[in-house]
């Protein structure tokens, strides 16, 4: 039984297969593009640009118009299985952010895409863009390549997704990012990408409230009654529940019960 504030973060970072500085020498491209159930371990690469180069930091490029599922897309940190809610779980997804500014993020619940164009078709750009919801707030734009000319990106949706997306027990859900730039991301020469700073790392962040156990039943009651699913409302419902039990215990008993012969 709990209400927990959760977050999940995806990055297009791979991992070297040979995480040691000692021989055997590591081939330049001997890296995994995907790392399951954790984040990749990285380090500054060894003798970059020389024949004895060893790569310990790998940013996986994302092609123009490529769509990547942040849970199971085969790039960066991934999960074993798709996101699916158990029978006693609710998710209230109220925050999403993406970087760089040319990337878009789309939330998918079962077969429905959340963001759509005015004609009712799922967003052709692939959802909300990193210009609207940059991650993190205040991040330097990825373009132009010169960091001195970059601008700081600010969040345009201050309150997050309101109303939030409610994902119900048994629902499958995922988040996709799409590169809407005409060139592969990260931009730059090979050596610039190999020495890439945070400006060259694509990332997506989601924030949600995970309601499980007995609180899931309370959440269902709130939905049935048409109340917004917020922490405050869940608390309020539980308070009322306790209060009504207290009142019930103080209520006058019906005559028949009051006068009934007591049994031991």
């Amino acid at each position: 039984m709990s209400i927990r504030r959760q977050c999940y973060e995806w990055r297009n970072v791979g991992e070297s297969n040979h995480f040691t500085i000692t021989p055997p020498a590591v081939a330049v491209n001997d890296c995994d593009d995907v790392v399951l159930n954790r984040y990749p371990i990285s380090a500054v690469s060894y003798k970059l640009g020389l024949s004895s180069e060893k790569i310990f930091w790998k940013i996986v490029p994302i092609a123009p118009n490529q769509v990547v599922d942040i849970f199971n897309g085969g790039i960066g940190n991934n999960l074993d299985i798709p996101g699916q809610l158990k029978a006693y779980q609710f998710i209230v997804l109220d925050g999403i952010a993406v970087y760089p500014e040319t990337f878009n993020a789309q939330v998918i619940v079962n077969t429905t895409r959340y963001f759509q164009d005015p004609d009712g078709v799922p967003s052709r750009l692939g959802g909300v863009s990193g210009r609207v919801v940059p991650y993190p707030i205040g991040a330097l734009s990825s373009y132009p390549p010169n960091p001195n000319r970059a601008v700081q990106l600010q969040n345009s949706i201050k309150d997050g997704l309101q109303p939030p997306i409610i994902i119900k027990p048994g629902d499958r859900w995922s988040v996709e990012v799409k590169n809407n730039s005409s060139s592969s991301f990260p931009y730059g020469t090979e050596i610039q990408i190999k020495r890439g700073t945070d400006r060259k790392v694509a990332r997506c962040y989601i924030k949600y409230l995970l309601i499980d156990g007995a609180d899931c039943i309370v959440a269902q009651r709130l939905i049935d009654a048409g109340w917004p699913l917020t922490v405050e409302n869940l608390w309020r419902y539980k308070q009322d529940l306790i209060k009504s039990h207290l009142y019930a215990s103080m209520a006058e008993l019906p005559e028949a019960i009051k006068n009934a012969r007591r049994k031991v």
Partner: protein
Amino acid sequence: MAIRKQIYTWEINGDNTSGRLADSPYGTHYPPPGIEHSILYGAYGNVQDGRQTGLVKEDDFIVIESVSCTPGISPYGFRVDSANNLIKWTPNIFVNIIIDTTNYYQDPQNVWSSGVSGFASPYPRQTRDEPYYELWPPIYVLPDQTIDIRYTLFNDLQLSAESGEWENIPDSTMLAAVYVEYTHYDGTDAMMARKLMNLGIPVTVGTVENYRRLLLKSKGLETETFDFYLEAMRSERERRKRERKNQGVATQQDYDGDL
């Protein structure tokens, strides 16, 4: 008896060596990456002197309100000065909260995750930073529970040092940091906090102080205390009944005595 806002920070600085394995043996000063370490009793950084675990005493009640850590992902976010000292490092750190054996953060497939990153909840915060992540609702840690805050670094500083990009990591360079903010309810305040939690009322400084005021107000009633509360409850019940009638949402039960 007190309610105290507490701040705990964990930091790790350089050891005045280059950080290479030959100068600083593996695992002696710098935490190995990819493994969780405690900020309370771990083997690295400025942990508490006694390295006690975070056991909440029987007359304590803790409400954790915020966790943050150093932001950044790329190991190439480092900076060196003119003397080739490392003056900035990006640890790629995540921070997690563990109550007894339960991990607070879990990923969408419902298994243990590394926690919240420094991008989502940055520390130290710069003027441009605005955290995305807010620990709401806060976490209650009850008496006799054990709390632990653990960090995981995903950038390997010592392997990076082998690249020869810097010659020294001075002890003035903060390499990674974790920040925790919580409210500590002690003694009778902890009892009141527990009572409020059992009643389903959020435990905040305001609600605990309000509860205390109510208790002080009823002080001196002695044997009449029970009657006082009973009467208070009855009058509240009547008020709610009247309110429901006025709002037109009363049920047959509310009209029982009138019909």
